[in-house]
Every structure is written in structure tokens, then in C-alpha cells.
């Protein structure tokens, strides 16, 4: 990967003093995972360019200490990101100069050229991050992915050219923080000192409108063992699997945002549980535990069980519910457990109510059979509450394309008629009475965004 910095501040060759490298020579420095080479493709009094070329050992990246990259086939040797940031701080000495101390403190005409920068968030994000920093010129050119297969779409790479009048140390500080942040993938595990590094480097960051995005991207989370195992099975991106899920959740939330529908949904379910006098509830497909958190606030619920098929969701739910810090009396009210409705689980038996909020549409329609039998036939609580999107309403979501689902993992979205037919069939087979309610703002033609079915078990004759 390459970074070049050019100045036209005259004499331009003073750039060599600012970074402490002679323009007439090529020099090399050892890095943990390869070498950094510094040389000058041009060096005249009018214009001087220094190149920082990293020769990364791809095998050391994979096999080195704290390895974080699973594949030898990766862009890390080529895209300027955290490895480049490390090299900048090692080789360019932050733009402080013994020979030209006053020049180091002077804003001069500078240009930085990053031939390959990765930013999955797109060009607009790069602009949003760079624009507040006062550059005169910001050129961002997208790079093609594979011209032979245009159907694969665009690449996440850009060539970046920045020009402005500023101190070299400022330019280097921007690059040091922003290259890894825009890239979003650190090559080594984040430790406590990374937080300090960020604070040290970015006084300019405090006033930056994108500072939270930058900081969150710079400081990457750790993964648990289960997530490691899971990532062996689910090939998404080389980013975390969870990110993809979270993005889809966020997307769905955004589509539905104008109504803050999720909030209404949870309240509606809570109301039903209270109406029916339920004291113990199993939340099937509890996800991150938003409903459970709401139910924990109500003292009437003395036994709560959240089950989900996703270990990651359960970890998040445990965080949200602060399970580890709950006092014993509170802790005794709630349990989380991994389970799957595809399998029959005795742990789901014996509750006053079972709720499945926005769950069934994540299951392939042809695999609903066992789910029905396990929930209504086996667990068979007196009350079952199910919510699911009302597909008819989708036309009213401005940000949703026609025929698309609200969430990338939805296997179907039903109309009111489809859902009601499904419910009636279940009620008949398993001895329940079912009533339907709408959740959210009701449109006269299309109904409400969410539909809810309330199943009450018929008394045994």
C-alpha cells in the first residue's frame, strides 16, 4: 500500500527536514509484518513528493501474534488503513522537526494521495468525515471491482487526494486516525491503550460532527468464542457476522421509524399479557431482550424466560438486562436460554403465556409445521401472542421498494388474510380461540403496519 505526500511550499525539499528523511536516498524500516520504504518520486525546489510504500508480508498478517485475519486472500497489504497509520507514526515522526521547528509549526501547502482507501460506508461518508477538516480540495474516485463482472457491483475502494494549507503534523494526525476509521477493520486487537491513542491524536476530533462514528469504528469490539465458532459457518463479510445482522435490524428500524413501531408493538404485547393476568411468560425469539426489559419493570411478572436461537442475541440480551449485576431477587425472575422452535423443548412448558414478537417471519414457511406443534401442541401455554408484519402496509413505507421485505432475513411477510388463515388453522388444530389486533397507525385500506394474534387455550371439556 502506498501513501504520498507532496508540498509546493518552497523550498519544497524542506519536506525532507520535516519528516527527517533525505530526498536523495531511499530508506527502509522494519515493521512487525513487513517493511516500510520511504523514497521521493519527485524532489525539486518547486515540488517535492515523499512516498511511503509498505511491503506487507501477507503470511505474517495471518500467522502473526494476535492474528485477526482468517484469509490469506485479503486486501490488507494493499488498502491503506491501520498498518499505514502505524507506519506513519513510526516513520514520519508526527511531522515534528529539529532542523525546521518553525516550519513544522507553519501551515503550508500540502497534498496527500492515497491510491487505495477502503470505505464500506461509501463515498458520501468519506466526504462527511473529511469536509469539516478545512481542506481546499477533496477528490474521491471510486475504483472498479471487476470490469469483467459488472453484475458484482462496485468496489469499496477509492483513491483519495487531499489538498490544503495546514501543518504537516495536522495532516498526519488526520490520516493516522481517519485511515483506520474509514476502513473500519483494525489489523490487531484493540486494547485499552488504543482509547488513549485516539484521545492523544485527535484534539480536532472533539469538535468533529462525525466524532462518534469515527471513534466507534476506530475502537473495534472483541468477539466471543461462540461468535468465533459461528463465523466458521456463516460466511458474510470478513467483518463480524453480527454487524450484518445489526445493519439489517437497523435498516428495518429505519423503515419503520416514523411510527417508532417497535415501541408500540412491545406495549401492545404487554397490555395483552396484563389483560389475561399472565404472571409467567416465555419470550420465544427474545432477540436482544427489549420486551423482557419492559416486562422486568412490571413486578407482576415473576418468572420470565427468554429463548433465542442466536447466541449472539442472547449475549446482547444479557447485557441489556444487566443480568450479571441484578440483585438476587430480580435475577431469580429471569432466565435466558438458547433454544429453537424447530426442536421440542420442555423448558418452554409451564408458563402462563408465550409470546413471539416478530419471529415467525424469520422462519421458512415450509418449516413452520414443527414450530406450530412445538409451541401450541407441546409448550401449549394458556395464552400465546404472535406478532408479524402486515405485508399490505408495506406500500405505505416510503423507503421500501415495492415487493421487498422490511428485513433482509424475513422469509415471508403476510397479508392480514394470510396471517388470519394461518392462525385459524392453528387455533382449530390445537384447541385455541384466536382474536386479532392491529398495532400502529391504522390505514383504512391497508390496515396497520403490524398484526397481532392472541390465542387463548380453550378450557378442557
Amino acid at each position, binding site marked *: 500500500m502506498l501513501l504520498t505526500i507532496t508540498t509546493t511550499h518552497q523550498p519544497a525539499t524542506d519536506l525532507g527536514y520535516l519528516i527527517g528523511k533525505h530526498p536523495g536516498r531511499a530508506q527502509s524500516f522494519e515493521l512487525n509484518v513487513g517493511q516500510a520504504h520511504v*523514497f521521493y518520486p519527485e524532489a525539486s525546489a518547486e515540488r517535492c513528493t515523499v512516498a511511503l510504500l509498505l511491503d506487507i508480508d501477507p503470511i505474517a498478517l495471518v500467522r502473526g501474534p494476535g492474528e485477526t485475519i482468517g484469509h490469506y486472500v485479503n486486501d490488507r497489504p494493499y488498502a491503506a488503513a491501520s498498518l499505514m497509520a502505524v507506519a506513519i507514526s513510526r516513520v514520519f515522526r508526527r511531522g515534528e522537526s529539529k532542523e525546521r521547528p518553525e516550519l513544522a509549526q507553519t501551515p503550508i501547502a500540502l497534498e496527500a494521495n492515497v491510491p487505495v482507501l477502503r470505505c464500506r460506508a461509501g463515498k458520501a461518508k468519506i466526504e462527511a468525515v473529511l469536509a469539516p477538516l478545512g481542506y481546499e480540495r477533496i477528490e474521491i474516485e471510486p475504483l472498479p471491482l471487476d470490469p469483467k463482472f459488472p453484475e458484482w457491483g462496485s468496489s469499496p475502494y477509492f483513491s483519495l487526494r487531499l489538498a490544503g494549507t495546514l501543518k504537516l503534523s495536522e495532516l498526519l494526525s488526520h490520516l493516522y486516525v481517519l485511515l483506520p476509521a474509514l476502513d473500519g477493520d483494525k489489523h490487531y486487537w484493540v486494547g485499552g491503550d488504543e482509547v488513549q491513542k485516539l484521545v492523544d491524536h485527535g484534539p480536532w476530533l472533539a469538535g468533529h460532527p462525525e466524532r462518534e462514528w469515527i471513534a466507534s469504528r476506530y475502537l473495534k469490539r472483541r468477539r466471543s468464542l461462540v461468535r468465533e465458532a459461528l463465523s466458521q459457518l456463516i460466511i458474510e463479510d470478513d467483518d463480524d457476522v453480527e454487524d450484518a445482522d445489526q445493519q439489517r435490524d437497523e435498516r428495518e428500524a429505519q423503515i419503520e421509524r416514523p411510527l417508532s413501531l417497535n415501541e408500540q408493538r412491545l406495549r401492545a404485547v404487554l397490555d395483552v399479557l396484563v389483560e389475561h393476568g399472565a404472571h409467567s411468560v416465555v419470550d420465544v425469539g427474545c432477540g436482544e431482550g427489549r420486551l423482557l426489559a419492559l416486562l422486568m419493570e412490571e413486578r407482576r411478572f415473576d418468572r420470565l424466560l427468554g429463548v433465542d436461537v442466536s447466541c449472539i442475541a442472547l449475549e446482547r440480551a444479557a447485557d441489556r438486562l444487566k443480568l450479571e449485576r441484578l440483585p438476587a431477587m430480580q435475577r431469580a425472575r429471569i432466565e435466558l436460554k438458547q433454544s429453537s422452535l424447530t426442536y421440542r423443548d420442555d423448558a418452554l412448558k409451564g408458563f402462563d403465556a408465550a409470546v413471539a414478537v416478530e419471529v415467525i417471519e424469520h422462519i421458512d414457511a415450509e418449516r413452520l409445521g414443527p414450530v406450530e406443534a412445538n409451541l401450541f401442541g407441546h409448550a401449549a401455554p394458556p395464552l400465546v401472542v404472535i406478532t408479524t408484519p402486515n405485508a399490505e402496509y408495506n406500500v405505505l413505507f416510503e423507503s421500501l421498494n415495492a415487493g421487498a421485505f422490511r428485513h433482509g432475513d424475513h422469509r415471508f411477510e403476510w397479508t392480514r388474510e394470510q396471517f388470519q388463515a394461518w392462525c385459524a388453522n392453528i387455533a382449530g388444530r390445537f384447541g385455541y380461540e384466536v382474536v386479532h389486533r392491529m398495532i400502529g397507525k391504522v390505514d383504512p385500506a391497508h390496515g396497520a403496519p403490524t398484526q397481532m394474534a392472541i390465542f387463548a387455550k380453550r378450557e378442557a371439556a
Partner: protein
Amino acid sequence: MTPLPIEIPALCLVVLIGPSGAGKSTFARTHFKPTEVLSSDVCRGLVSDDENNQAATKDAFDVLYFIAAKRLAAGLLTVVDATNVRSDDRKHLVALAKQYHVLPVAVVFDLPEALYHERNQSRADRQFGAHVVRGQVQALHRSMRGLEREGFRHITVMKREDDVARAVIQRTRLWNDKRHEHGPFDLIGDVHGCLSETCTLLRKLGYRIEGTRQAPQVTPPEGRRALFLGDLVDRGPDSPGVLYLVMAMVEQGSALCVPGNHDIKLMRKLAGRQVSLTHGIAETLEQIEREPPEFKVKAREFIDSLVSHFVLDDGKLVVAHAGLKESLQGRTSGAVREFALYGETTGETDEYGLPVRYQWANDYRGSAMVVYGHTPVLHAEWINRTICIDTGCVFGGELTALRYPERELVSVPAEKEHYAPIKPLAPPTQLRAGLTLDIDDVIGKRSVETRFGRRITVQEENARAALEVMSRFAVDPRWLIYLPPTMSPPATAPSGDLLERPEEAFDYFRSQGVREIVCQEKHMGSRAVIVLCRDLHTASARFQIESDGRGVIVTRTGRRFFKDRAVENALLDRLDHAMTTAGLWAKLDSDWIALDAELMPWSAKAEELLRLQYAPTGAAGAAALAAANLALARTTARGVDVAALATAFAARGALMQQYIEAYQRYCWTVTDPSDLKIGPFHVLAFEGQVGLAKSHRWQLDVLDALCAVNPSGLVSTDRRWVALGDPASEKEAIDWWHAITAANAEGMVVKPVDSVVRDRKGLLLQPAIKCRGREYLRIIYGPTYSEPAQLEALRVRSVSGKRSLAAREFALGLEALHRFVDREPLYRVHECVFGVLALESEPIDPRL
């Protein structure tokens, strides 16, 4: 000294009863294994570090009861060594015995009181006074006579020291224990007075019936015996005739019989008890009136002598009229007998006013086969390892026998509807719930027994990952009869410009004593497991799949390959057409087949991977290297020496282009199913056979015939047969590998011709070793891996973990196929397939 025999059942709860100092512990030590004896003193020690700490009594007994319960649940005889002198002390033990359906046995030490005192005084650790022992003696005497009422059976009281010394424990077989009887048997369902059909069925099974109706003489086929599953009587035309026949056969040793609820009711009536004269008993009583008077006594005594269930053939077969749950098999209690006769009901009644039966068979996870009758069904059908063979003869259905161990069903039709059923016979679909999977079938740390010489352990965290994938992404488990194992590369080439070569693959098989191997071209696409049925009926009958198509194509993690069902159907139709045209359905005598294949192009399934990993690396690499080379050129032009760097980066730029070409080679645009190609290379299974266990010669012959029908849509697998040790033969294959990898091929896969081969220890060899080409490996090890320095670093890799994983996954996958072909229950197939998926989540170098 004459021995004093104490008879106890082989499985029971022995409660030793006697004051301190009676010598119970010594007695237990003498007559029982140390692990059979649970001592309250030892338990006190376990929970308090002091065997005599009376304050720890409650905790000590909690421990004792807990262990006792575990042992009894596991079917192990257990001896409780505590004073047990009070009725209250014993109540808990009797309840425990009842809970696990074993008999509580009392062995009482009622010795002269002076003896206890004397012994206790001589022991330093016994500090309690004489009054304690006196109290115990009094308590014993007060409650001793009530032992039988408390529920004890086999009560032995020893009054003298001499009795204790002479005691000899004799363990006796329970009545239901016929493990030593190995059959073969012909199990016959509910007869209900249908004498004529019974005789027809017996003759069909090869029995010769001579003599008269009242004194029949039956000669079974050599070595076989009939086994009647009860309900001999009621509803049908000649219940006494059936009784004559079965009584004679049992007496002559040509039959065994368990009683049915109708038989028991008849016996009660004949014994003068009040019973309601419904459900066909009135007809029976009329028929009996026409028999000689002594018949009533004979019939009553016969039924009374019957044992409610049998455990046969080393525990592999269990028979009872209404079936039997695993926890009740080989046990004795009123509850066991109730279940064996009547089954269990849910307490509800259906629209015909009949009790709703609890479908215990759906939950059955036992290893013994359970054969039963009681509930008439339209067809006999396996549910887990159980089968009901009451096919409603008396209601105009059939009389059915199951030949054991052949598992073959033999039926004769009813001569007429002898009795009108209250409700129509249940169609088999109502029993389909037997396909239920329990979370406990898959989750937690598990170990799966295979027929390949080892148990395979699945760790909990791997099972958790697999549960999510299986639930969220996989197809219906009923389709999922196999997942492919991972495959190991050969040991790394020690030197030269290659990482992998055929030589090392050959060395592996040679070192394992394999003589004949086959090298198969490795198609570069995505792995696909294909299940294809001839029609929807087969999907329903064999896979219990309704309305989910007639087959499925799944990825190596069990996901449906295509979201678009039209594409899947088009490919299944293509295969079906080829199967039909090639005459393979007929040749294999099967209506379904499972194939292991490669689906091409790679980009069809791996597009995401290409988009997110392979193409981006090429895009970033090409752009970055171009910029670097330009900067280096300009620096050189200035006269600064960067020659070494410039040469290296120029070479790297060329390698990046080679890399881009390498992945592009396996990509083409798919607009229509006809752009997709299937390269089948294993015949996994078909009706009655595990194809994967057959030689690769046989499998490839079948597949060649299949592919020949449609060469453009079905890609045959090129191969070379190699005799290991024949240098010419080996060289030919090596040259071939160089040629195909220089062209387009990914590489080749080396397999022993005999397919499933075991090593000297009986464990499975690697089923295959993949040998990948130099260019293909750029996709694996990175664009520039062939630079000498990188190559040397990459040589340091170990394939042992991968090999171990491959062998375990292969054992599980093959086991799954065998279980499916043997028609084992779904959960038994699924636990293997789930295991493969779970093992796949083990962290193994993904480049191997």
C-alpha cells in the same frame, strides 16, 4: 453350616433394616459389590467430613437418595445401608423404588439386643449411649410387621447371629426378563377372536397346524416362535378357538404371549368379578358358554399366568400389548403393568368419546425395538424404534405379523368386517408427529455412537453454533440425510515450487496399505448434496415430506442451494430425466437417490464471497501495485536506486494479474438454469443401499451412465486409476494432474477405490485427499503466495487436525446414511448430520 438363601430380583432396591451394631455394613460388604451399597455413614462423611455427625443426617440422606435415584434410573441394583428402623425412614425408599418401578426388598436384622451394645462399645467412633440403640430396637419392633403393607416384597428377617452368617444372596431373573431368548420370532398383533385369519397368517409364516380346534398341534418353522401381543379375545367370531390355539402353542413351546386389556377383563369376569359387558366381551362370553365347563378355568389360569411385557434378545426387543416407554422396560410395578396393558392417555376424550392416547412413541428414544398392538392403525409404520402391528383385523382390516429380526411385515386380509369400529382406523399421517426432534437430541456436549469403531464427541459450543445454523438456514431436517465431510490436502511438498503434489497424497494411502486408488478431477464449483425422488409420493412416503417439492439441493452446511424454487426444480428435473433415460431408477430398484456433486459455476453460489473477498483483493491489489510501480519508476528516473524494490513490485503486479485470472476462470454469468452444470461424483444412497459404502468403480459407472444422457448439463468426472507401487501407473496420474491443473482444473481428489477403508486399529482412513493445483492455490493462499519466501513460510503447516476432523465427519455422515437407509428414526439420522455441522464449526485452518 446349611446356607440360608435370600432370593432377590436381579434389579431391586435392597433396604437393610436393623439397629446400629447389627452388622449391616459387614453384611453389605460380604454380599454386594462396593458400588452397589449406599451407606448413610459414608454420605455423612461426604457432606461433613465426619461419618458419625448426626447433624449432617438430612444432607447425607439427600445425597443418598440422589445417588440411589440415579442408579435405579440406570437399572442398577442398589443396597441402602442405614438403620431404616422407622416406618418414616423407609417411606422415602419405598417411594423411590416405586418411582423407578423396581421392587423394594427388606432384609431385617432383628438380633439379640445385647449383641448391638457389645459391638457398639467396642467401637471407638460410636459414642452414643445404649438408650439410642434401645430406641432403635423398639422402633423396629413396633413397625416390623407392617413391612409388607409399606410396600416391601421379599422380606427376610434374620433373628440370630447364625442366620446372618449363613445368608446367601440369590439374584433371580424377573419374569419379564427374557434377554436370553434370541428368537427368531413372529410377532402377531391383536387377534380378537379371528381364528381363521390367525391360522391363515401362521400358515403363511410357515407354521404347520394339525389336530383339532380344541387340541391343535402346531409345528413352527425351524427355530422360530410365534409371539402374540395380546387381545386374543372379544369382538371376533371365535375367541375360545383362539385361546385353544394360543394355549396349546404356549404349552408346546412354539409361542410366547403377553396379555391384552381384553384378555385381562375376560379373566376378571371368569374369576367372578364385576365387569361392564361392553366392547365385545358379551359375544365372547356367549361363545364360551358353548365350550366344556373346564374351559373357563383353563382360560382364566392361562391368562393369569401371562406376564405383562417381555424384554428379549439381550434387550434389543421389547413387547407389550400397548407398548412400553424406555423407563418402564424390564421393570416391575403396577404402573408398568398398567402401561403395558392400556398405554397412557392424556385424560382428554375425542369426538367419538374415546380416550385420547398419549403418543409415547413420538418421544421414544430407547435403543430397544418396541413392538405392540392395542390401537388399530391402517398400516403398520415405524415411529422412532417402535411399531404398532394391530392393523384392525376384527374391524375388517388385516392381521399383521412382524418377522424378527428380519423386520419384515406379513399380513393377511380380514375375511370380513367382524365388528364395526367406533371410529375409522387412523391413517398413518396422524402418527407423523413421530418426526419430532427434541432439543436434547442435539444440544449440549454429546457423543454419537457410530458403526465405525468410535464414538464421536460434539462439544457444547459447537453444538450451539450448529443449532443456530440448523434452525435459521438449513432445510427441513427430513431432507437432510447427509452432510459432506471436510477434506484434507496431502502433506506439504518438502521443496520445489509447489505446495501440494500428487506424490504426498499417494504416500499417505501407500503408508496405510492401500493398493488401488482413483484420482478424480476436482470440479471447481460449490459442493451440493442432492436428494431426488421420482415423484411427490416418494417424497411423502420415504422422506415424510409433504408439499416441499420432490427433492432438494443443499450446500455443505445444509442450506437450500437456490432461493428460487424454479431453478432447483429445473435441476432436479434434469437429473430425473437422466435417471429415467439411463434406466437407473429400474437398475437401482429405488424411487429416490442421494448424490454428492459439485455445482458450477463457482460464482453461482460464491458470488457473495467473490464480491466481498476475492474480487476486492484483486481490485485493491491491482490499483495499489500499479500506483507503487509508478512511484518507483519515477524515483528510478530521478537516479535514486530503488532497483531491488522495483523488480520485486513489478513481479508482484504480474502475480496479481494471475490471481485475478485464477478466480475469473471459475466464474461465468448465470442467467438461466441451463447455465448451471452439475458434476456428480458420489452415489450417496438409494433405497436399501448406502452407495457411498460401495467402491468408487461402481459409483462412477452409475454416474457415467447418468452423465452420458446429458453431457452439457451433467459433467462427468474424469479420473485415473492407479495401482500404487507401479511407477508407470503413478507417473501417468502425476502427469495428468500437471496437465489438468495447468489448464483449468482446480486439482484432483485421491480416494481409495474401495471407498470405506479402515486402518489397522479399525478406524476409518481418510476417504479422500485433495491435491490442488498451483494456480488454484492463489485463491487460497493469496495472490503472491508463490514468491519463494512466502512458499517456504507456508510449508510449515500441519494437516493432522484437518485429518482428524475429516475422519470424524466422514464417520458421522456415513453413519447418517446407514441409519436413513436402515429406516432408523429421524432423530437418529439427525443427530449425525447435526454432528457434522457442529464439527464444521471447530476452528481449523480454513486453507487446508
